[in-house]
């Protein structure tokens, strides 16, 4: 039990997917303009990551290992994740059209989001059990959401700040992202 909680908290802070593993940078920069849509994106990614981690773990252990096809893991994970994201997109479009509109182009982008592929591969590399993988996925996704929400909060304030003209928009966002990553380095080595 302690190990599970450690994995969860470790994935949120110490090995934050965005700010220390540098996975999933595209939505981190793209969907971090408003806190509201950042939370929506975080929820979508959490859902997809949990599903992807579970599905990919099962497929890896019960199909790929059984037939000695571990070397195919990357391509199979991509296949599974792409199908999952399509599925999630359909569900969201049906059940929450407003969320679907605010996520816009970024929802299909989860398909190619390396955070989701990263969780599947990391779970195999770290030799986690199914339960551990799921906790790792939820922790990683929460860490992703946390990074996104912090970033969105700062960028909402930046709108009103007097940023030099040449740094307006994305340049200042990258600088902020760099500072945030340095801040998260403070957690490094705590576990």
């Amino acid at each position, binding site marked *: 039990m302690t190990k599970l909680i450690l994995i969860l908290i470790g994935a949120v802070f110490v090995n934050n997917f965005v700010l220390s593993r540098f996975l999933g940078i595209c939505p981190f920069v793209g969907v971090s303009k408003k806190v509201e849509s950042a939370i929506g994106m975080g929820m979508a990614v959490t859902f997809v990551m949990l599903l992807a981690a579970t599905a990919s773990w099962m*497929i890896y252990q019960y*199909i*790929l290992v059984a*037939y*000695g*096809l571990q070397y*195919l893991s990357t*391509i*199979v994970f991509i*296949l*599974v994740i792409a*199908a999952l994201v*399509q*599925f999630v997109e*359909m*569900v969201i*479009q*049906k059940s929450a059209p407003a969320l679907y509109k605010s996520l816009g182009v970024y929802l299909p982008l989860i398909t190619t989001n390396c955070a989701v592929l990263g969780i599947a591969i990391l779970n195999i590399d770290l030799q986690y059990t199914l339960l551990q993988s799921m906790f790792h996925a939820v922790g990683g996704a929460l860490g992703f959401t946390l990074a996104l929400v912090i970033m969105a909060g700062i960028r909402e304030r930046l709108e009103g700040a007097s940023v030099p003209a040449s740094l307006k928009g994305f340049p200042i966002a990258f600088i902020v992202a760099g500072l945030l990553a340095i801040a998260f380095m403070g957690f490094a080595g705590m576990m």
Partner: protein
Amino acid sequence: MPPEILNAVLIVGLLGLLLGVALSVAAKVFYIETDPRIEQVEALLPGANCGGCGLPGCSAYAEAVVTGKMPPNLCVVDRSCGEKIAALLGMSVEEKEREVAVVRCRGDMSLDNKKYKYLGDISCAEAIILAEGPNPCRYGCMAMGSCVKACKFDAIHLREKQPPLVDRDKCVGCGACVSACPKNLISLLPESKRVMVLCCNHDKGKSAKDQCKIACIACAKCAKSCPVQAIEMVANLPVIDYDKCIECGMCAAVCPQNTILFIGENPAIAQLEKEKAEKAAAAKAKENTDSNQGQES
């Protein structure tokens, strides 16, 4: 075939097949009903996705029309589709006149008086960064064809040593070239308007003339000659009030720089020439009577 390869192909193939079937089932289960009229309206639209209506594409515009956010007659490409859409949706439309792009510069580029030789990428937006472009006139056309590239209807073409020419038959008035021009030289005018000022140089007479032989020198002859006071001089350029303009062509006829264009036969030129001939005849007649009187006395 070795069994490892067969296994790999079979397993990945089967997995793909299963996921595909699952997705197609999900697509049926989670099918979203959309207003069928949106598709019908979109089918009536030309599908040019030019952005002339103000929305990014035809499908967005179709949705806006069906939901009542926008009127059905905003399509600039196919003017007849507004009526068809209105008939389909049971709405009424007002006729909107076709607008045509006008390049408001006649810039004479035959002179070899460029500020520098521009060797960069042939793009107006990039050329303007360097000292407002190589042209001596900082307001004028650089003729690098950003507007030509922006046009989706092949309606604007580059010419030798002259600003690009708009093909008035092909132009649909979508305004893509208007936003592509970094010097804001292109504007949309209703097709029926025949008088237009083709210079954007805000400098005073002499310096404008130094930059370009056919620039507006702000002499205000057009404003003075206008019988209905439809022309006002604003920042050294004449501005035509099209609500007042009666298209007499007088401004174009008196312009010493040929800056004002009158499309078609200008009635004022004939009138001016007639007046001139009458004056000359009157002067001659007066001279004759004067000399006759001199002889008599």
